[in-house]
């Protein structure tokens, strides 16, 4: 199948394509020169994996013959359950269970993210994003805080469009930050294939009272750091730093909130009252 994400056409060859048509349905395209190919292979684990560069709870990243190979782990057993080979123009992945839907869409997402980071000024940020009037707002917080719940309150009371309920591709282009819709929108599958100018970041936390505070850049950076993918190496830092600095130019707020309309109005009024 062919999909279009940001401004690139990506052709994905699944072993069982029919299982993924629905997931990617809003992003399918018929034509267009392909910028990236992604192939699913039968799983084979290499005896010699090369040199390990990253070790984490979720995956290990190895370098072998100048290629980066990511082995995805089962979080409970730490056994490898899939792998992804990064390459400029054609990425390859495989999973032990070739019908493992969530693992497979995750591996495709890693491949796409790497490609977008290499080809655009692009950063991936965790959070629930909405389009309200001409504004693009990301609500972010550690998992379980209530980002989706807060975005749903906006939907209930105001005329908004969901951009993505979980993952946000932010692209810096023509001096602006644009949010691009993508299918990786978490368990509620709330996403739309739209492009919205990103204008605000809101860091949420649960509180008994609704409290809004405008953050200075330093405060915003320390919160932002935990919600974006940070650079893998020194070489990636300058590009990352440039887009993070652009993000910190946006108005950033911290909102201690209850689940009620007052919380929504507090941030809405602040945004609309900005000079």
């Amino acid at each position, binding site marked *: 199948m062919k999909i279009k994400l940001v401004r690139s056409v990506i052709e994905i060859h699944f072993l069982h394509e029919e299982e993924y048509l629905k997931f990617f349905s809003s992003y399918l395209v018929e034509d267009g020169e392909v910028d990236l190919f992604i192939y699913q292979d039968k799983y084979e684990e290499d005896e010699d994996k090369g040199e390990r*560069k*990253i*070790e*984490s709870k979720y995956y290990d990243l190895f370098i072998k013959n100048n290629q980066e190979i990511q082995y995805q782990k089962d979080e409970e057993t730490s056994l490898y359950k899939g792998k992804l080979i990064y390459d400029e123009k054609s990425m390859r992945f495989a999973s032990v269970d070739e019908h493992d839907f969530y693992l497979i869409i995750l591996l495709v997402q890693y491949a796409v993210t790497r490609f977008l980071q290499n080809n655009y000024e692009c950063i991936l940020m965790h959070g629930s994003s909405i389009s309200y009037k001409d504004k693009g707002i990301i609500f972010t917080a550690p998992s379980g805080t209530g980002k989706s719940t807060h975005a749903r309150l906006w939907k209930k009371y105001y005329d908004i469009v969901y951009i993505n309920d979980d993952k946000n591709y932010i692209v810096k282009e023509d001096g602006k930050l644009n949010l691009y819709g993508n299918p990786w929108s978490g368990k509620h599958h709330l996403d739309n294939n739209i492009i919205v100018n990103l204008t605000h970041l809101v860091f949420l936390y649960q509180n008994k009272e609704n409290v809004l505070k405008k953050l*200075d*850049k*330093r405060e915003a*950076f*320390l919160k932002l*750091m*935990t919600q974006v993918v*940070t*650079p*893998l*190496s*020194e070489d*990636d*830092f300058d590009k990352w*730093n440039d887009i*993070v600095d652009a993000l*910190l130019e946006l108005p950033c707020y911290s909102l201690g909130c209850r689940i009620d309309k007052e919380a929504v109005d507090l941030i809405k009024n602040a945004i609309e009252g900005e000079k």
Partner: protein
Amino acid sequence: MKLSGKWKLKKIGNDSILMPIGQNALDLRRVINLNSTSLELYEQLSLGKNEEELVSYLLANYDVSKEEASKDVHEFIIKLKESKVLIDD
């Protein structure tokens, strides 16, 4: 000793922060704040200067005694080594 490459200097307005990158960012969820003097010392270290040269730098630029400068530089270097900002060659 040399910089490990596991941290990068992030400047935000007048603030300077060392942030972990790569594997280090996965292991650590913290940053190191640098005040103006420690930023200057860090910049000297990134130029490849050694402990003795850092002490001379402080003596040339600040009104401090040799003892104070040596103590401050030594403590700063130990702190950076503990966080693996600096490693031995």
